[in-house]
């Protein structure tokens, strides 16, 4: 039996790698994409372009503005002298933030009345706007603390000492790059599996396969194992690049990591072969691959947290294998989560994989046109 399966695997690898374009497509893009996306996918905000609109001649206003100039998060890109100049700057996205200090600022500060600083923010990108506002507040807070100390005021009754665990500098790259392992591995397994049965159906070679003494299980293994080998190789390469190139810490054990990778590959290959065996034409196979791939990635918690979704969608993500793999990857890489804490993530992937593989094997026989 194993010899027959080996022959099938060899044939499958030939079909995949014989065409130089196909070979290129499977090997090069994942690595290039890891590099490009690893740098591109960041929520960290540096060099926020801002404009200053200062109507106050006093030293206090200058000092507050120095706080912005010295912050590595801001970059002064324009000076505004009239109200009318503000709108075009923000509309055309020349600046993200306008800091407006009114003519009464120094006077209010000297008399002890609340001195107001107006901050205008472009809200088109709401996430960037929120982060920029946070940085504005921290610059103003620092100025407040210094001013209060200078005026001899007591410090506020409570101070926050904030410490982020697992990712002390809050680098979003640490969050994104492990997620990228799941994304690119998923794409590669889809490339290898989702069109393979549909192609044989279209070309008529699947019928030939079915009249050979192969049992459906053997055909299934012959189709699944090449995807598994390619997926495992690529995910290992990506993990390696994450650690060596992007310097993401890998705190957990390799055993936990590879249990996750294995189960994820089984579930992803299951889905891919299921799509492939449902599709009559390759066009439908491609459509099916996209219809799975796109929601599976967007609703995986890769870019936006699952906890922010409405409850119904949160329930829906329970059938998404990528969701579990995301938790495993981030846990193993950043938190060093031990094996036993991840069992709840392991078994759903195994179930998803088993159901889909069984479904695909069943469809091999039943779907003969």
């Amino acid at each position, binding site marked *: 039996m194993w010899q027959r399966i080996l022959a099938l695997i060899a044939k499958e690898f030939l079909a995949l790698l014989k065409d130089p374009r196909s070979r290129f*497509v499977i090997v090069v893009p994942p690595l290039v994409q890891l590099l490009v996306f690893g740098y591109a996918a960041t929520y960290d905000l540096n060099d926020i372009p801002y404009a200053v609109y200062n109507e106050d001649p006093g030293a206090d206003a200058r000092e507050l503005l120095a706080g912005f100039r010295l912050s590595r998060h801001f970059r002064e890109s324009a000076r505004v002298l009239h109200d009318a100049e503000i709108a075009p700057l923000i509309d055309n996205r020349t600046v993200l933030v306008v800091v407006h200090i009114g003519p009464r600022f120094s006077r209010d500060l000297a008399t002890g009345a609340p001195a107001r600083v107006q901050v205008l923010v472009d809200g088109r990108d709401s996430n960037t706007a929120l982060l920029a506002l946070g940085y504005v507040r921290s610059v103003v807070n620092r100025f407040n603390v210094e001013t209060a100390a200078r005026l001899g005021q007591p410090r506020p009754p409570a101070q926050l000492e904030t410490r982020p665990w697992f990712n002390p500098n809050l680098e979003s790259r640490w969050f994104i790059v492990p997620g990228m392992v799941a994304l690119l591995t998923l794409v590669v397994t889809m490339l290898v599996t989702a*069109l393979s049965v549909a192609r044989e159906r279209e070309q008529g070679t699947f019928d030939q396969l079915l009249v050979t003494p192969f049992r459906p299980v053997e055909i299934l293994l012959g189709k699944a194992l090449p995807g598994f080998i390619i997926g495992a190789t690529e995910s290992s390469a990506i993990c390696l690049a994450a650690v060596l190139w992007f310097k993401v810490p890998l705190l957990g054990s390799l055993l936990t990591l590879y249990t996750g990778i294995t189960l994820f590959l089984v579930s992803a290959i299951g889905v891919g072969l299921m799509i492939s065996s449902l599709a009559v034409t390759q066009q439908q196979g491609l459509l099916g691959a996209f219809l799975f791939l796109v929601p599976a990635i967007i609703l995986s918690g890769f870019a936006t947290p699952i906890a922010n979704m409405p409850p119904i969608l949160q329930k829906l993500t329970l059938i998404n294998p990528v969701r579990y793999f995301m938790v495993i990857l981030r846990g193993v890489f950043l938190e060093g989560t031990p094996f036993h804490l991840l069992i709840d993530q392991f078994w759903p992937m195994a179930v998803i994989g088993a159901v889909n593989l069984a479904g695909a094997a069943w469809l091999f026989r039943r779907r003969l046109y």
Partner: protein
Amino acid sequence: MNPPAFENTSQHAPRGGAGQRLRGLIRKEFLQIVRDPSSIAIAFVMPVVLLLLFGYGLSLDAEHVPLAVVVEEPDADTASFVAAFQHSRYFAPVAMANMAEAEQALQARRVNGIVHLRENFARQRRSAGGAPVQIILNGVDANTARLVQGYVTGAWETWLAHEAQGDAATPHPPVVVEERVWFNSELRSRDFLVPGLIAVIMTLIGALLTAMVMAREWERGTLEALLVTPVAIQEILLGKLIPYFILGTGGMILSVVAAVGLFEIPLRGSLLVLFTASSLFLLAALGMGLLISILAKNQFVAGQVAIIVTFLPAFILSGFIFDIASMPGPIQFITHFIPARYFVAILQTVFLAGDVPGVIVPNGAALLVMAAFFLGLNRLKSRKRLG
């Protein structure tokens, strides 16, 4: 003498002109579309399903963030501090007996952070230095952690203001920030994500519709049959482009209707600008799909290439969710080759800000260049020749 005359008529007056040949090709393509309903599903079902799923599913607004609250020595002062968190819609505080329990909850991801009020909070709070409050956040999701940090600061400021009112000894902060957020005053991430989502979805649809069509004809040998007919190569290309352009425009209209009607995204710009930009983008996306199809010549490779070059680049490099301005220089340069980048910029502005020429014109021009580039390349790469 008769045969040459006969030949002449057939050469100079073939049955029907270019227009009729083109109509015939378009009719043929439409028949093919109707017979394999997957194209119609791509154009009409996919945008609505994806927009629904992602419009609701993608959100960066953290609400009811579970926080563990550990109070070593509960009294009236700590109760007023904790109340500021309880009354905030951003938090769902959970009281925990001690730090060990809270840390365990953080590790098991049951809570996103810990607020720790140490013993003698009440006494230190009245001292000159003030009481330190320890905040621990799960930093794995750096973006959410930063947002939560902002909300924590907000709750703390609310508490300070409240304390200052009740007690003259507590000073108010010298400088107060007055925030005005333009275009999206409530900072709903959905208003920002849904317009960009339309660009991502249209990228998928444009490429999916055309990525297979030429490769399919190569593979089935029907292109050879087409090549021996009098149709010109640009007629074949137009015959492919026009039907899918019509389908894609239908999908685009559905997406805009869903965005405005269902998600209540304001549409502050004009429909004219919106549809001009969409048409340009659609031409670029269809042109890209067609190019994949022509270069790959077999459906398997065309499908693989379509998966790789469309979805993830449009998702990550278009500025739809990750701000392009935050990317390193070389990566920003690469984003200029992604048509979706220009479309996302136009959509976000047309929906939320209005017709701003400073954004629309350069991005529209870039789309025009991309469309011309892809279509021109298609023309160059397809010859009436085999092999």
